[in-house]
C-alpha cells in the first residue's frame, strides 16, 4: 500500500515535470488543433478549444494542490487560535457556534460565502475556512482538555509551573503532532471541495494556471463521444491526487 502511494506520488511529480517541460500553456486556445488525438506535438491530445490536455491536467493538479495547502493551513491556524483562548465562557459560546456550523452542510456554507464574497482566490479560501473550521476546533479543544487532565500536567501545576511553561512544554507539543495529522488528513477534503467549486462554475484562476479540474469536467461532459480524453483525464487527475494525499489503513 505504501509502495503504491509512493509510486503514485512520484508519478504526479513526473507528470508536473513533463507539463512544465513541454511549455504549452493551459490557457492557449488554438482553433487549428481542435480535438487532436495523442501525438508528438500534444502528447495527450487537445480539447475542443485546441488546449493541450497535458497542460490542462498538469496545471489543474498543480492549482488544486497549491490552493489546498494554504487553505488548510489557514483553517487549522484559525481553529488553533480559537481553541487556545483560555476563557471558559468564550469557549462555551464558541461551542454553540461550532455545533450550528456542524449542523449546516459545509458545502452550503461555502457556497453562500462564495456568493457573498464574489469570485477570486481569497473568496474561495475564506469560504473553505468558514465551512471547515468547526471540526478542527473541536479536535483541538478536546486535546487541550485531555492534556490538562493528564497526570503529568497536574503534577507540573502542583510543582509551581507557570502558565507559559505549561503552554510551551505540554500544550504546544500535543498541538503540534495533532496539527500535522489534521493537515495531512484534511488536504483530500479541500481538494474535493475545490474541484466541486470549479465544477459549479466558481472561477479562481488568478495565477494563469488555467481552468480547474472540475471546470474541465463541466466543460467536457457534453462532448464525451467526440473527445473522451477531455473528460477522463481531469477525472483521473482528481482521483489520483486525492488518493495520493489520503492516509490509507495499514493492511
Amino acid at each position: 500500500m505504501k509502495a503504491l502511494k509512493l509510486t503514485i506520488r512520484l508519478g504526479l511529480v513526473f507528470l508536473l515535470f513533463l507539463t512544465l517541460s513541454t511549455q504549452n500553456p493551459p490557457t492557449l486556445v488554438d482553433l487549428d488543433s481542435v480535438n487532436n488525438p495523442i501525438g508528438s506535438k500534444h502528447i495527450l491530445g487537445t480539447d475542443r478549444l485546441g488546449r493541450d490536455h497535458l497542460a490542462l491536467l498538469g496545471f489543474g493538479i498543480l492549482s488544486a494542490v497549491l490552493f489546498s495547502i494554504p487553505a488548510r493551513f489557514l483553517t487549522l491556524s484559525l481553529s488553533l487560535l480559537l481553541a487556545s483562548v483560555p476563557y471558559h465562557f468564550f469557549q462555551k459560546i464558541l461551542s454553540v457556534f461550532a455545533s450550528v456550523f456542524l449542523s449546516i452542510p459545509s458545502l452550503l456554507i461555502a457556497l453562500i460565502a462564495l456568493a457573498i464574497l464574489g469570485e477570486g482566490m481569497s473568496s474561495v479560501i475564506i469560504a473553505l475556512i468558514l465551512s471547515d473550521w468547526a471540526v478542527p476546533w473541536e479536535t483541538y479543544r478536546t486535546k487541550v482538555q485531555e492534556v490538562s487532565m493528564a497526570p503529568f500536567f497536574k503534577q507540573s501545576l502542583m510543582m509551581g509551573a507557570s502558565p507559559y511553561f505549561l503552554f510551551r512544554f505540554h500544550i504546544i507539543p500535543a498541538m503540534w503532532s495533532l496539527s500535522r495529522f489534521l493537515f495531512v488528513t484534511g488536504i483530500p477534503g479541500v481538494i474535493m471541495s475545490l474541484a466541486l467549486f470549479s465544477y459549479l462554475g466558481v472561477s479562481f484562476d488568478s495565477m494563469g494556471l488555467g481552468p480547474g479540474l472540475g471546470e474541465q469536467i463541466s466543460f467536457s461532459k457534453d462532448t464525451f463521444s467526440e473527445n473522451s480524453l477531455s473528460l477522463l483525464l481531469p477525472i483521473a487527475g482528481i482521483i489520483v491526487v486525492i488518493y495520493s494525499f489520503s492516509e490509507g489503513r495499514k493492511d
Partner: protein
Amino acid sequence: MKNSIFRFLIFFLILSWIAFSLSSYRAQDQGYIFAETGNFESVPKQNLILGYLIFIKQLFWDWGGTTISGELVVPFLAERLIPTLALSTFALLFAILFGIFGAVLLASYQSNFSILIFRRFAELILATPIFIIGVMLLLVFFYQLEWLPPGGFSSPLHLILPGITLGSRIAARLFLFTSKEIEKERNSEYVFVLESRGMSEKFIFWRAILPKLQPLLSVMVLLELAGLLSGAMVVEELFFYPGIGKALYYSIRSMDLNLLAVSICYSGCVFYFLMEMGRYWNNRILGEGIEAHN
C-alpha cells in the same frame, strides 16, 4: 429533559440568527436580478435586529414568508420533502445492502483476497468526489446504454442514478468500517476463548461478532441519514431532482432571502435532531442511560 430543551433553544437561536444574517448579505444585490428589464429597485437596507425579528415572526406565523416567485416558503419546502425522503431512503438502503451486507457476506466466506480488493475499491470511491460518480453514472447508464433516465422524479426509475451516486460514498464508508470491525473482533480475546471452548466459526461469526456490531452500525446509519435529509445539493442539481437540496441551491443562486434562511434552519434542525437521536441511542447502547444524555 429541561436541559435538552434549553440546549435546543440556544442552538435554534444561533442557527436562525446565522441563517438570517447569511441570507440578508446574500440578498443585498437582489435588485440586479431584474436589472435587465429596467425594473431595478435595490433592496432597502434594514436594521438587522428588526429584520431578524420579522424573519422569526414569518417563520412561525406566516409559513416562512414568500419566495421570490410568490409561493409560501414552508409549503414550497414541504412539497420537496417527499422526493428527498424517497431519495434518502433509496440511497441508505443501497448503502446498507452493499456496505454492511456486502462486508458481512465477504467476511463470512473469509475470502481475504476479495475483502482486500473490495477495500481498495471502497477507498477509490471515497477518493472520488460525488459529482464525478454522478457524471460517470450518467455517461454509462443514460448516454451510452440509455437504460435509465437522466433526471426528474416521475417514476421509481428516476431514483436509481441519484440514489446510487448518493449511496456509493456511504456504502464505501460502511463497508470499510464493518470489515475493519469484524476483523478486529475476530482477533479479540473473547473470540479466542469461544474458539478454545469448541464453538464453530459460523456460530462465533453470526451469534457473537455480528450482534456486537449491530448497535454501532445502527448509530452510524442514523448519522448518515442526518446528512442525507439535510439536502443533497450537488446530486439533486446534477440530476434535476426536485428535492430540498435543489431548492437550497436555487435559493443561493436566486438570492431568495426567505427561502434560503428557512432552508438553512430546516437543514440545521434536521441534522441536530438526528445527531441527538444518535447520541441518545449510543448512550443507551453503552448502558449510560438517559441521565448521561441529559
